[in-house]
């Protein structure tokens, strides 16, 4: 099934997520990040942070753990999950992402169809005061057989 431009602007469900220090630690261990600012609040404070910060690519954790429904949404859009490859990921940071409650809202921001099908999702992550912490753009490429 071909993907069409009709889905551009479609919003996915808003979701809440709690960033936990333990999850930051687990993520850092998985990527071999050893800087103590990500593990120890005191070390983070010494480096000028108010708590352990989440490393630059941690927002992916919020998206997958916070919104596992993305797979169903993609399948419903006609995307064959066995054929997708990640094409692009971009983060624009407004604030440091710290442990605490956040919420996120994604929408489909672009579709390229034809020989190569590319779908782009834009997600903004907000703090509890509704201030944006960061925005993310994820583009996926759908392989042809």
């Amino acid at each position, binding site marked *: 099934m071909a993907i069409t431009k009709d889905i551009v602007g479609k919003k996915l469900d808003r979701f809440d997520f709690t960033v936990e220090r333990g999850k930051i630690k687990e*993520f850092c261990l998985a990527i071999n990040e050893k800087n103590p600012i990500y593990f120890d609040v005191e070390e983070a404070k010494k480096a000028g942070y108010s708590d352990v910060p989440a*490393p630059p690519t941690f927002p992916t954790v919020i998206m997958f753990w916070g919104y596992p429904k993305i797979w169903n949404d993609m399948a419903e859009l006609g995307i064959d999950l066995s054929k997708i490859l990640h094409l692009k990921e971009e983060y624009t940071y407004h604030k440091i992402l710290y442990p605490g409650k956040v919420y996120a809202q994604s929408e489909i921001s672009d579709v390229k169809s034809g020989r190569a099908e590319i779908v782009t999702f834009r997600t903004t992550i907000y703090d509890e005061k509704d201030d944006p912490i960061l925005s993310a753009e994820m583009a996926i490429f759908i392989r042809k057989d």
Partner: protein
Amino acid sequence: MAKIQFDKVEVGQTLPPLDIPVIEHANLVRYAGASGDFNPIHNDPDFAKKAGLDGTISHGMYVMAQVGRLCTSWADQKDIAYFGVTFKAMTKLGEKLTIVGTIKKKFEKDGKKTVTVLVEAKNEAGEVKAGGDLVVNAV
């Protein structure tokens, strides 16, 4: 970590590279659990083969996270304004990556100093797996 000094970096200057250990299945299983990305092309060799791949491939985001480690080893995370990559080739098990960075642009506008770095993950043959920009606020 010290802030990036605008006057002390030059276009073309390179960052100290970061060598990543060989990517093994266990790295990807662990990354899947930590990140929540359980797409079976990264953790199920049979599924990956049925999907037309030689075997499981790395999460692109695992590679991007390694590029991110170079970024935060060079700049204070508080000063990072933008970090984005394009994935150019699949990373397979057994590959050994090196993360490199080269100052691409220096820019001053309205008293705000910005440095852009081209950051890339390459394998031993020099094939670029992911490449993009890191934008850092400088002083």
